[in-house]
């Protein structure tokens, strides 16, 4: 056994840290918080120019050819610093599928731009009437001339307001069982019939509901086979390990510790001497360590591992459930002053603690709810029957 990430990973972490020192400004972070849009196109282009994009793609596809263990140093540093990588992540995931499975035309149009950080692709799976059960998608795509007419709506189409395309799962055959009648399309958003309606969330993050009213999509933008959408989804997310949320935990405990060192109790003692506060700090560091280890194991054991799916779920489940407890308990231990909100001039520690309470709740819901992760673990790791 060896718990070092290795020289290559450490070197990549150092390069990432140096890049972030230079490019990730306070203003950029503040703008992401304020607008709720976790994307900055200058940042994305700089990342591409620095050769820090598509690190996990094979060199033949224009990527960096790095393995999971090497990438850990990069990923962990990005998380720790809260770099705006959400839209970059969805864009690169979809572009990778296109690089692997797309037509020549699709590849030529999308991949070079994605590799330069010049386009944004949003995900369109969830709908108002279905979330975790993605295969229940009701948005219809019907044949029309040399293309398709799309009618329906997608929920939580995050970044649609800045995106060029939405990667959409639509029902092309309502006559067969639900997994078999789905097709994926890359739908250009800048066209008649598409409406993007802003949805604000408790964390300040902006997302959207998007409506599609007789939107025409050329058959050239169909990804994969007709009625083969579920296979494309599988290919898109097969290489994506469900990730742990570690950066949020680190930023919270750092803010909490900094506060505890400065703040004084009624009898003028540093709050850091309070045993309950020390216990929470130690617990948080322990949970961060376990989250990192679960994530590192999920990544380094490789995708061929039969249990890999369940291992990624463990990292996501553990890290987000513990993050929620950390946020609530930290707020309670800080006391009334913890209520001072991000953006208020009197807030503590740049609002990190108050914001964590708002933000943590979402993490156990999106990217696969805790219930979905538990179902996966119960079935794939524990060998229990499909739970109901």
């Amino acid at each position, binding site marked *: *056994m*060896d*718990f*070092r*990430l*290795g020289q290559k*990973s450490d070197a990549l972490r150092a390069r990432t840290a140096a890049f972030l020192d230079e490019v990730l400004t306070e203003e950029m972070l503040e703008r992401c918080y304020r607008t709720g849009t976790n994307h900055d196109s200058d940042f994305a282009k700089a990342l591409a120019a620095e050769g820090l994009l598509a690190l996990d793609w094979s060199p033949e596809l224009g990527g960096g050819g790095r393995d999971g*263990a090497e990438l*850990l140093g990069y990923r962990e540093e990005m998380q720790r610093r809260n770099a705006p990588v959400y839209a970059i992540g969805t864009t690169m995931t979809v572009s990778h599928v296109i690089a692997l499975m797309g037509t020549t035309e699709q590849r030529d149009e999308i991949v070079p731009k994605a590799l330069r950080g010049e386009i944004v692709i949003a995900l369109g799976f969830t709908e108002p009437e279905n979330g975790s059960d993605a295969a229940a998608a009701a948005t219809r795509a019907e044949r029309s001339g040399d293309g398709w007419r799309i009618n329906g709506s997608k929920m939580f189409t995050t970044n649609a307001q800045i995106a060029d395309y939405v990667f959409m799962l639509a029902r092309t055959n309502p006559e067969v069982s639900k997994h078999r009648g789905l097709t994926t399309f890359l739908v250009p958003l800048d066209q008649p019939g598409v409406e993007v309606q802003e949805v604000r969330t408790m964390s300040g993050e902006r997302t959207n509901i998007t409506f599609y009213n007789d939107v025409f999509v050329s058959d050239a933008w169909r990804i994969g086979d007709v009625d083969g959408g579920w296979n494309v989804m599988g290919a898109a997310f097969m290489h994506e390990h469900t990730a742990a949320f570690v950066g949020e935990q680190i930023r919270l405990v750092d803010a909490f*510790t900094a506060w505890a*060192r400065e703040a004084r109790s009624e009898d003028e003692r540093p709050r*850091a001497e309070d*045993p309950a506060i*020390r*216990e*929470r*700090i*130690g*617990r948080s*560091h*322990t949970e961060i*360590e*376990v*989250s990192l*280890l*679960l994530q*590192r*194991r999920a990544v*380094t*054991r490789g995708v061929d591992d039969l249990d890999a799916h369940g*291992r990624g*779920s*463990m990292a996501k*489940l*553990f890290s987000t*459930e513990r993050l929620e407890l950390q946020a609530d308990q930290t707020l309670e231990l800080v006391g009334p002053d913890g209520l001072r909100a991000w953006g208020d001039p009197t807030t503590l520690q740049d609002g990190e603690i108050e914001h964590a309470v708002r933000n943590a709740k979402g993490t156990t819901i999106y990217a696969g709810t805790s*219930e979905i*992760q*538990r*179902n996966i*673990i*119960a079935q794939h*790791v*524990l*060998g*229990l*029957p*499909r*739970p*109901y």
Partner: protein
Amino acid sequence: MDVNPSAEQRQLLAAFAALYAAGAPPEVVREAEPLGHSPQLWQSLLDTDALGMAVPEHAGGHGATLLDLALVAEQHGRHVAPAPLVEAQVAARLLATLGESAADLVSDVLTGRRLVTLAVRPARAGHAELVPAGAVADAVVALRGEALVLVPTAGRASAVTTLGSQPLADVTITDDDEVLAAGPAAVAAFSHAVDEWRVLTAAALTGLAARALEIGVAYVLERKAFDRTLGSFQGVAHPLADRASEVDGCELLVHEAAWADDEDPARFPELAAMALGFAAETARDTSYYALHFHGGYGFMLEYPIQLYFRRARSWGAVLESPQASFRRVADLRMASESRMSEAG
């Protein structure tokens, strides 16, 4: 990053798995209660050189790493084995660091002539309380002020019946007890030994939790309720999925802590405290749900799961609560952050 045991470590695991399967089935664990000691099992552990492996070669042992010992301790925990393995190994390693002054003692320990254990909490006011293995040991190594002393148990140790059926004893310490070492070096050696005990106890608790989870899963796969397999209810499956994540995380944390003894000594004390706190809670929660999903049967003495439930709450508590382990993590982390900010 490699989280897999080596080929040699897998052999070691298999050997001890076989030893415990033969020597510590639930009937043996039960028969050994309430003292919690099986002389036959202990003898077979001695015959397998379970103590010799823990001691460096220069002191007459075979120089296993703490990680090797942690893998063995996990097997020990899986069987909630009634033998003082962890305490005796840690005490032997501590004695081996003391050089000539303890050479005869180490030799006695390795040949099985004397069973020596460690009082993991410093003696206070002439007493070392709830000393692990104190009820079956010939002598106890204890920290009295700044001195490591050797305390014979004859007439000085009184066994205590406890929740987890461990051979614990309250031991009287006197000013006349033989001093093995004294001063800051002795205190540091004791502190390191206690950290080793934290890691190996955490390893045993991890094995306990992993096995309790297996027992719970096997039961809910077998039992039916309302015409369905019990394990197909989310109310049952989901708490088990949470525990599975914690057990896996716990095992990784314990391995990292044990690995750090040699490979990352600056982080070893912090990781040791993390490991014990997290393992104690993981064993507690896993045994809670594994027993609970047995329904009333889990509460019966006849079912093995209660053996796990009681020990999950006892093994680490002899030293400290999870809360205290986590406070120690904060103490160590905040002290190191202060040093870094002063230096930087």
